[in-house]
């Protein structure tokens, strides 16, 4: 049984300008110890998916229209607030993109770091502090017993992200949701942070959902990858299959637009047009206006995510028919 199973999640935002269907029927599952990558551009719904699971979608304007998210037998979307509190922050932890704004600048690192322990476990403050110091050391901050009393502004970006990771991992979660944890960081620091998450994962066997817009980061880090576009999963596969034999035109186009894969001087491949406006109804495949293979059928019929092999599924009508 998977650790987390999300089925047909739909989250929309009801604004004065219309209803934005940010997440439109997303299903996925994560096993214990596994790393799932969710890739997509801005506005593809990858962050809102995870915010919905963590109860971080502001309601209103947000509304979770349908779906279930079964975490070890409990439906995160329909359980009581008390049940949810016992899971969120304890068994599921999350780290955010921007370490500069996700720490409270008025509180010392120590207070923020041990807060989850004090809330979720019956420990004394001094005991929790000891664990905090051990955790900071584990994430590679030297001189942790002194530095734990610093304020966030006294740390660099990479170190703040380490603090965030320490804070997320201090309760030994079974699932870590990482929302673009390295996007704001330099490549060298990114390598350190990825290595750190991997090490923590090896030691504790936790599962990771890794959200990013960077396909290259996913390639070395994740076991499976889901590609999202306009609030839907358009392709899901194990990492090797996704990189070496992608089927959906969007996945292929994304890969072709990475500069590293193209020789200097040659024009970069670009996806024409822009992502669709999610407040308008989308007849047919959401990618069809930008797809070079689109036919009339693609513009009228909504494709569903169908498996082509046990580990590979995609939502392209033409690829499913074997036409492309």
């Amino acid at each position, binding site marked *: 049984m998977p650790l987390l199973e999300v089925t047909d999640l739909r989250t929309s935002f009801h604004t004065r300008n219309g209803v934005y269907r940010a997440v439109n029927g997303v299903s996925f599952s994560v096993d214990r110890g596994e790393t799932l990558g969710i890739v997509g551009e801005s506005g593809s719904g990858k962050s809102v998916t995870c915010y919905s699971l963590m109860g971080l979608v502001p309601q209103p304007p947000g509304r979770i229209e349908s779906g279930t998210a079964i975490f070890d037998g409990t439906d995160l979307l329909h359980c009581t607030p008390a049940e949810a509190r016992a899971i969120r922050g304890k068994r599921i932890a999350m780290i955010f993109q921007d370490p500069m704004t996700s720490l409270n600048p008025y509180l010392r690192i120590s207070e923020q770091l041990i807060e989850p322990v004090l809330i979720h476990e019956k420990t004394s403050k001094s005991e929790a502090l000891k664990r905090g110091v051990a955790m900071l050391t584990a994430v590679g901050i030297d001189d942790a017993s002194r530095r734990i009393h610093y304020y966030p502004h006294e740390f660099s970006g990479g170190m703040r992200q380490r603090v965030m990771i320490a804070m997320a991992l201090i309760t030994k979660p079974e699932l870590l949701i990482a929302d673009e944890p390295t996007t704001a960081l330099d490549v060298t620091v990114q390598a350190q942070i990825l290595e750190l998450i991997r090490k923590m994962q090896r030691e504790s066997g936790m599962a990771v959902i890794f959200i990013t817009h960077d396909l290259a980061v996913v390639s070395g880090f994740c076991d499976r990858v889901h590609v999202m576009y306009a609030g839907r999963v358009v392709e899901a596969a194990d990492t090797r299959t996704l*990189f070496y034999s992608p089927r959906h035109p969007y996945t292929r186009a*994304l890969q072709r637009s990475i500069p*590293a894969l193209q020789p200097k001087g040659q024009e970069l491949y670009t996806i024409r047009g822009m992502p669709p406006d999610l407040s308008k109804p989308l007849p047919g495949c959401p990618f069809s206006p930008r797809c070079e293979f689109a036919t009339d059928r693609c513009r009228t019929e909504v494709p569903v995510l169908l498996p082509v092999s046990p580990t590979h599924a995609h939502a392209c009508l033409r690829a499913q028919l074997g036409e492309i």
Partner: protein
Amino acid sequence: MADPILELNGVKTHFPIYRGRLFKRQAGTVKAVDGVDLSIERGEVVGLVGESGCGKSTLARTIMQLVPATAGTIKLNGKDLNALSGEERAIAQRDLQMIFQDPYASLNPRMTVFATLAEPLQVHRICPPSQVTARVGELMSLVGLAPRFMQKYPHEFSGGQRQRIAIARALALEPKVIIADEPVSALDVSIQAQILNLLAELGRRMNLTMVFIAHDLSVVKHISDRIAVMYLGKVVELGPAAEVIERPRHPYTRALVSAIPTPNPDFEKTRQRIVLAGDPPSPVNPPSGCPFHPRCPYAQDRCREIVPDLYPAGPLRTAACIRLDEI
């Protein structure tokens, strides 16, 4: 090296740190840029890479005269930018334009696209008032925006489109040199490719010289002729783009290159990563000798004492490491 358009000679930009309210005293100096020599040919694209805090953006701002250089000279077309008369300065400003990282912050939200693009034309009297509208339309088409959007405000555009407006604004004065400070970092991959193509094409068409700053090495490699790698205010390696990325010589460049994730799962499984420990040292109190020695896997006692110059490291290449031949 026939025709350098932009020459930097020993450029230093230091910022004083003051302590105390009543009895203000200088408590230290941030050596953001600490002695950069760089000569850029006409029509060349030079990529400037390095981690945050290495001084690449300060260098860009120093070239643009947005912050004063503490020492050294910057020559544009052979003329020292610090020793210009008022009129010459106006021309130099016209020849030197900048594109900023964040198109959400670098455009005035209260100005329409027309106002944004017409202002430089009017200030520098590039064309007669009757032709301003036509010229703005031309600029918009040049960067791939429909001129009918002239009266729209920045918030009505997406990130990629805003960056196009910023590019059009930089091109309005027909500059010779463009300094692009992380122009694609804030954009999605597919939009990033569009902007990179646009910059490359405009550069070719208008014979622009470009200093392209980015922390994403694959982007820099794609667009640049040469790459300069900066660390703690100094250039530590300089050479042809593909060479520097594919066969890095300086230990810092090697670490930087080995940290780039590639979209290739099989390679990622087998590759050896040089994971650098810690953060770059503070430019307030840089280490003795080679600035990279505290994090360098090859550091010896000598490295703590000798400040390395840029030594030849192959054809057209230089690197600032005293152990180049040994490692």
